[in-house]
């Protein structure tokens, strides 16, 4: 009901590395991803402008994770088109990597590399831009400590942790480290898959604020979440149900009834 037609524009066929206010950061056009019985995504279209903060809501199994996986390039849709910062996914491996570097994902299971130190994990976010020598050096010596100290400070973690193994961190610290790694990657498009799922209310609020703060200066945030009480800071709410977009509106315009309806099938 909310299908947004894809504008037929002349698009560059090379990755664009900086954002511009008149260019969409993410554009999904009639995306379809097949599933076992019903399609996981069916005719889904979505647009993100620079600076926008969009919450993705819907019951479990509605297709939120699939949509995020399409958005970060892990899943290739069966039909439909996808544009990052105005450009289609590049064919050449090198260009595609630069394009991927513009998309940062905060994973629900964090996906930190347990065997490496905090510093090495942070630097792993730079691998798209680094050559082999520096990538190997990172596994032997402290590399780019200043930049890492700075991102750790932004998520309220002490620089003393830099040389600690990830296994030594507490749950909350790990969550922050994952965010710090995302900041270190410095992407234009921030995707987050249920980052608040297992956090207590205070931690969840803190992390969300941090994330919302990042979506400024030409960046955009697409975040899936489960809790209607945290929608306040978002510019838009996109609701999915059975693989389809059923709502795309500002949170202020949402009534409690509408919200309840979104999550109803879970009961």
């Amino acid at each position, binding site marked *: 009901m909310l299908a947004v037609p894809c504008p037929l524009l002349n698009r560059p066929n090379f990755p664009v590395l900086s954002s511009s206010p008149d260019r969409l950061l993410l554009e999904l056009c009639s995306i379809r991803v097949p599933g076992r019985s019903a399609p996981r995504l069916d005719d889904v279209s979505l647009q993100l402008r620079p600076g926008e903060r969009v919450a993705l809501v819907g019951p479990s199994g509605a297709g939120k994770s699939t949509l995020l996986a399409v958005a*970060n*390039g*892990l899943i290739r849709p069966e039909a439909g088109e996808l544009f990052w910062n105005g450009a289609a996914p590049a064919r050449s*491996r090198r260009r595609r*990597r*630069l*394009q*991927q*570097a*513009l*998309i*940062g*994902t905060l*994973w629900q*299971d964090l*996906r*930190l*590399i*347990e*065997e*490496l*130190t905090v510093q*090495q994990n942070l630097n*792993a*976010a730079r*691998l*798209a*831009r680094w050559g*082999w020598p520096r*990538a*190997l050096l*990172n*596994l*032997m*010596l*402290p*590399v*780019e*400590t*200043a*930049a890492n100290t700075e991102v750790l400070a932004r998520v309220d973690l002490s620089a003393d942790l830099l040389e600690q193994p990830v296994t030594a961190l507490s749950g909350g610290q790990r969550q922050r480290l994952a965010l710090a790694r995302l900041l270190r*990657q410095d*992407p234009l498009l921030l995707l987050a898959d249920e980052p608040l799922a297992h956090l207590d209310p205070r931690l969840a609020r803190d992390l969300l604020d941090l994330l919302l703060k990042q979506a400024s200066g030409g960046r955009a945030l697409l975040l899936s979440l489960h809790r209607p009480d945290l929608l306040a800071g978002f510019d838009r709410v996109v609701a999915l149900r059975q693989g389809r977009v059923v709502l795309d509106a500002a949170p202020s315009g949402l009534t409690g009834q509408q919200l309840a309806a979104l999550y109803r099938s879970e009961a």
Partner: protein
Amino acid sequence: MTATSAWSWRSLRLAPPLLPLLPVLAWLPVLLVLPGLSHGGGWDLIGQFAWAAFNPSLDPLVLGSLLSGLGITVGIALLGWALSLALGLLGGVLSSRTVWRTLIGSALPAELIRRLLAVPRAMHELLWGLLLLQLLGLQPVVAVLAITIPYAALVARVVSDLLDALPTQGLEALRLAGAPAAPALLTALGPALQPGVISYGGYRLECALRSATLLGVFGLGGLGTDLRLTLQSLQFSELWSGLWILLLVMLALEALLRALRQRWAMPARFGLTRRSVGRGGREVALGLVLLLPLLVLVAAALGVSPLQLGQLQPLPPFTADWPAVAALPWLSLIGSTLGLTLLAAALAVGSAPLLLLLLAPWPWGRVLIQAVWALGRLWPPPLTALLLLFVLQPGVLTAALALAFHNLGILGRLLLEAEESAPMQAEEALVAAGAGPRLALLYGRFSALARSYLAYGAYRADVILRETVVVGLVGAAGLGSLLLESLSSFAIDQLIALVAVYVLLTLMGEDLSDRLRRRLLAA
């Protein structure tokens, strides 16, 4: 740019993903020395050898003889494996601390039996074969026993380790409830032991096939003999017919064992494939029932019977000249044997992850390395050594390359399997953030694999030490070449001394690699 000034050697610490690659540095000196060792005399022979891979002989006579050789090799492997598994299970139970503690309240007999079993384990199956050849003559039972004896001791050790690592709460509960010792042991530990034994037992069958082939190379019958004779008479087409046949058999066996392992030994994941222990147990029992008549059939076809054991003969008469034996250059012999072991181990352990890293992202890369590794496993090291002699001078390096190639095949396959079963989320995250496929593999997956891979590498080094004897014919200076020479001279005194030194070295190597492994896995 930033912290450059803070770098110092003191802050140099190798992260886990680099550790498996570290041994690759052993290639640097090797590559430096290699040009000096190569004489290039036989490059056209190597070319003919490679060309013959695509032109195997299809002569029915050749194929017939190869197939009958294959029959003998597979038969020897099957019999040796089955016997060793049966004896090894028994020995494993007998050397388990838990069992003895439950039965008599002290683990002392277990410790004793463990020490005793170390000796048969320390001798390579080839040594057993050559020794038994002296005692029993040229009979198929020699090859079967040569596999059975060391394998049984190995299985016993693994089984007892498995047993002692099992949680004992169930056992204690049963004992407290008044159950007699033996049934309590069987009930509490039996089912828990099954997956480990099946998984390891299957792996031993793969090893048995390799060992049977190797024994053939040294004249104990089967396809190995054909491989050696055809290589030495430079009949490469016939050689490749044998190799292709053996490759097919090996891959089929590996696929079968993998499937059975998954079916019988793996816990069902996510409850998607609900399978009760009962069904697995029934299938295993059925398999055993089917196996028994097959083994009898194979034994009959091979002419292996326990009666042949009654025909023991003493060693040939010899005059022991111990001072002369003591005067052998032991230090340099042991030194070059250890050097050979370490070099071969480093090359094998380091090359597998390097090759995987370099070739895996390339679509055909995986297929290619799997093919190369299969060839390495298949191809007994003495034959690689003979082939290398066409272009390289004999010596420790040539022997090390031959051993390394074989063990690369074994290590590489395990690495690939581990890599396929390791969680890939971290790697996926790196790819999504734009890391290249190789760096993503290195950071994302090797990190998790590094320690268990190196621990296996340590175990492999200990196996390689035992295996140095099989490349004696090109080793030029090690214990192995002297051992083969003293065998052909019937210098029994020298032989005894050499075997004793080998046993001692392997026991020490086993201890060292055990410690290293424990440290790696504990960290």
